[in-house]
């Protein structure tokens, strides 16, 4: 499908790269459909671009790549909303926040996006887990962003 974006212009994305949020993301309740594509060749990061809002895009990363021990305890409420029956059908994404001077990059591990890979339905889940905060500093990625290596 063709998606109009402010940042990337007019882009073509395959249908399987589109996810539908069963509820909008917190703070963006009306934005339900997003497409995912790599930040750059070989990059661990992805863009999550709104299909309904040309100007809305998030940088995301599969959190296991940066936090190997990361685990999400998904409540039945969330699993049911996503029609998720098996853990292996789930993928996780963490949103990244970059400070205005691009010096600090943090990952939000307290509010991951859970995707059902079979149905491409997704939901942002708020974790009540003291191990995870909304701002986990990513020192190595911050450096890579500043040096343009990412």
């Amino acid at each position: 499908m063709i998606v109009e974006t402010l940042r990337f212009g007019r882009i073509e994305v395959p249908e399987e790269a589109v996810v539908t949020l069963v509820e909008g993301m917190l703070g963006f309740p009306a934005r339900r459909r997003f497409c995912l594509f790599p930040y750059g060749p070989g990059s661990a990061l992805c863009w999550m671009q709104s299909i309904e809002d040309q100007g809305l895009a998030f940088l995301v990363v599969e959190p296991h790549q940066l936090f190997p021990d990361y685990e999400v305890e998904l409540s039945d409420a969330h699993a049911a909303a996503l029609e998720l029956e098996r853990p292996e059908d789930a993928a996780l994404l963490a949103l990244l926040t970059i400070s205005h001077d691009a010096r600090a990059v943090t990952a939000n591990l307290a509010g991951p996006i859970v995707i059902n890979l079979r149905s491409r339905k997704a939901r942002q889940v708020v974790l009540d887990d003291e191990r995870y905060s909304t701002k986990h500093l990513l020192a190595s990625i911050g450096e890579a962003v500043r040096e343009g290596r990412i």
Partner: protein
Amino acid sequence: MLVLTRRIGQVIKIGDEVEIVLVGVQGEQARIGIRAPRRVAVVRGELVEEVTAENRAAAEAPEVLTRTRGESLGRPLKQGPRTADIPSAGASSRKAQSPGERRVSSTDTSS
């Protein structure tokens, strides 16, 4: 807002399936037990506010990247990403929650 006064051990029922019990009070903190079906999501309000604020910050930040690295962004995607480009499964683990009531600490005993 309905405000109720409860003694320790007393229960509030919400509908047929949700029970809230005041477990204990210490100074300004109240321990509250919640018994609810697994399909009902229970989460502390301030966590939802924190994630909402972080989402807004995350939506702003990439503009910095566009300025910093304008040359490598803004290119149309020539080839669609493969399915494999989307993070694969196996990243999550779904653990069974321990049975029994979930407890949430709150500083507000009256709401």
